[in-house]
């Protein structure tokens, strides 16, 4: 031990006088290079299809050039005149010039859409002005306001000032139900427009509930899997894995067949007389449908990590606890359960993260009350075309999951995570 410490003090050399570290690096360089080349295809695949799109999304959530690119002159006026300046004739001239050129380039609707995100109902204002701007006569302030009196509204000018810069944090405000008033101060959106915070809360609560249900159902199954003799456990394992072999859509549709009011479960309940015909349970197109179907789909993700942790725990631990005087409950609680915590953590984290981002199942069986934040992200990408808001929502989701990882690392230790 003392020799080792002394050796580390001075630079070790090989027999022909080269520094040992350099010789080692040289000797290993070929193997390292080969290893790198082997993983290169996967690495580039991940970079192109995973890391790059995520970076794009992060960027898009704070960057939206739709207005600033198509309306450059008014943007210039906003930059040279500080916030609070009353729009003068020069401002209107710049605006009309932009409208004329954007109208000619057929991009005025794009710019209008950007303003419309912040101030609903203004899209048509822009498209109309885009058509008519070239006929306007100076002074433009009067003629534009004459075209539509909304052009004089301070609120619109406030919005235009904000969207004239391509980089903005406003999408994050929108994603948590906040907005700016005409003066740029942050305030909550009107109560009937508050959607996202509730949806985030619902998504997290629902995911937590699904995680807990999966744990309660999955723990005994995993225990059974790990303790049954090989013959039975492999059969049981096939049953656990069976859902993976069928399409997600098929499984979700199967739940639709089972859960609907004229479906299998309700029919059996009515047939056995447990409920009467007019009491058929509503189990689909609501929160319950989402919970049932998602629990079923995500259950294997809980069972497998639990199983992989339980399998190597020898029965002698519980036996030892019993022989030392512990009742079977104490032995379970004090000796068995603590050893399964890495599996509980891994399974819980996995199920929670998957359900937070789940899309297809809530879209199909969730109805209105079973929609999750991912469904709204999809809506903004495909329907409302507000990619920046979708990106902001997705980024918040990503951040909260990273926060969860961090918490897990603090509480349990990420190195203890065991996924199988």
């Amino acid at each position: 031990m003392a020799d080792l410490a002394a050796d580390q003090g001075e630079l070790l050399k090989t027999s022909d006088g080269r520094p040992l570290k350099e010789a080692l690096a040289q000797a290993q360089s070929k193997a390292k290079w080969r290893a790198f080349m082997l993983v290169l295809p996967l690495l580039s695949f991940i970079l192109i299809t995973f890391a790059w799109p995520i970076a794009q999304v992060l960027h898009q959530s704070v960057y939206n050039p739709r207005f600033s690119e198509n309306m450059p002159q008014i943007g210039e006026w906003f930059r040279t005149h500080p916030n609070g300046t009353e729009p003068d004739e020069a401002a209107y001239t710049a605006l009309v010039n932009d409208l004329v050129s954007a109208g000619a380039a057929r991009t005025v609707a794009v710019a209008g859409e950007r303003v419309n995100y912040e101030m609903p109902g203004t899209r048509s204002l822009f498209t109309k002005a885009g058509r008519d701007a070239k006929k306007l006569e100076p002074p433009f302030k009067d003629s534009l306001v004459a075209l539509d009196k909304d052009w004089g509204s301070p609120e619109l000018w406030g919005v235009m000032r904000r969207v004239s810069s391509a980089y903005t944090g406003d999408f994050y405000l929108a994603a948590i139900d906040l907005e700016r008033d005409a003066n740029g101060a942050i305030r909550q959106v009107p109560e009937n427009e508050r959607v996202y915070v509730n949806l985030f809360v619902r998504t997290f609560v629902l995911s937590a509930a699904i995680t807990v249900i999966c744990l309660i159902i999955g723990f005994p199954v995993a225990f059974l899997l790990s303790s049954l003799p090989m013959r039975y456990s492999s059969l049981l394992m096939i049953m656990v894995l069976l859902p993976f072999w069928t399409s997600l859509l098929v499984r979700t549709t199967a739940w639709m067949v089972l859960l609907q009011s004229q479906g299998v479960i309700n029919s059996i309940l009515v047939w056995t007389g447990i409920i009467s015909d007019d009491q058929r349970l509503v189990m689909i197109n609501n929160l319950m449908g989402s919970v049932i179907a998602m629990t079923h789909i995500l259950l294997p993700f809980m069972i497998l990590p639990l199983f992989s942790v339980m399998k190597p725990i020898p029965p002698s631990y519980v036996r030892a606890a019993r022989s030392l005087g512990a009742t079977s409950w104490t032995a379970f609680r004090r000796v068995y359960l603590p050893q399964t915590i890495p599996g509980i953590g891994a399974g819980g984290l996995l199920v929670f993260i998957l359900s937070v981002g789940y899309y297809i199942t809530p879209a199909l069986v969730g109805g209105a009350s079973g929609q999750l934040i991912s469904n709204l992200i999809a809506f903004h990408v495909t329907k409302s075309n507000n990619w920046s808001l979708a990106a902001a929502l997705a980024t918040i989701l990503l951040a909260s999951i990273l926060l969860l990882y961090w918490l897990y690392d603090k509480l349990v230790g990420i190195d203890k995570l065991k996924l199988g």
Partner: protein
Amino acid sequence: MVSSSPNDAFVAFEHVQKSYDGVQLVVKDLNLAIGKGEFLTMLGPSGSGKTTCLMMLAGFETATNGQIKLDGVNINEVPPHKRGIGMVFQNYALFPHMTVGENLAFPLEVRGMGKSERDAKVTRALDMVQMGAFANRRPAQLSGGQQQRIALARALVFDPGLVLMDEPLGALDKQLREHMQYEIKHLHETLGITVVYVTHDQGEALTMSDRVAVFNDGRIQQLASPSDLYERPDNSFVAQFIGENNKLPGVIESINGDSCTVRLATGEVINATPVNVSEKGAKTLVSIRPERVEFKPEMMPAGAHTIDAEVMEFIYMGDLFRTRLKVAGSDEFVIKSRNTLGQRMLRPGEKIKIGWAPQDARALDPM
């Protein structure tokens, strides 16, 4: 110390049978009485039923038939945690998420013992196995031998009257194993506890035990003290299983009380002691320990038959010489001689005559 009467036995198996599948008996009619303070070893090959017996005693397996009594009370229906039996497992089974101290405090804690009393007992138990400085370590930070000591201390910390050990030294290297054998033996002597020890290592069984029960095929083949077991095996299985052994198959030529002559397949006649053969003409397997075979004429016991042998191989083992001979058609006959001053080293090809005292050659069942 040794008690064989079931009435005052501390632990008693009475007609115990065990089957896992309802087709085969793993333990066939076991009767065994263990006295208080005795060190009894169950020795046997794997699958002989010894571990099953231990598990039944600990309460992890139920006897299919028969009774197991502890201190005169039938414990068949008593759950493991109420038996108050300490147990040391093969892989130690130290709880990995607890420190050494917490491991030792566990049995005291579940018994509702107060903190100060607990600490005192834990310290005492750790000192007993010379591990006092390790209370705050985790089991994973200890070497195999240290873990073994902790497991031992944990099984003893709640002062059980009976301690079961299931091949506790199996995972240790040879030197450490031998050291631990003496340590366990000394603990047993100082504490006066009863120990039931399971092993498949005959050396371990001979070194440590008051009595050894040799298991095979679900039955006790012989229950005897180590010296009896080694020197006077009851049957061929025990003779084979314990120590090295030379076998000479033959037929009883004459039998006279406690001595007999045996004619070997090749026609030679040797002296032997009949053990479980009774009549003339019966087939037998004569068993002789390698160290009891004599080849120097001046050392030969008076009146002993001698037999021709040819040296096949000579191995120098340090403290011993091991010589393989061809005797009566078989070249598996081994003799061992101590490396004393002037001891003769035999050369391969040398022709010698060997012999032995009749009581060292035991005519056993032919297997």
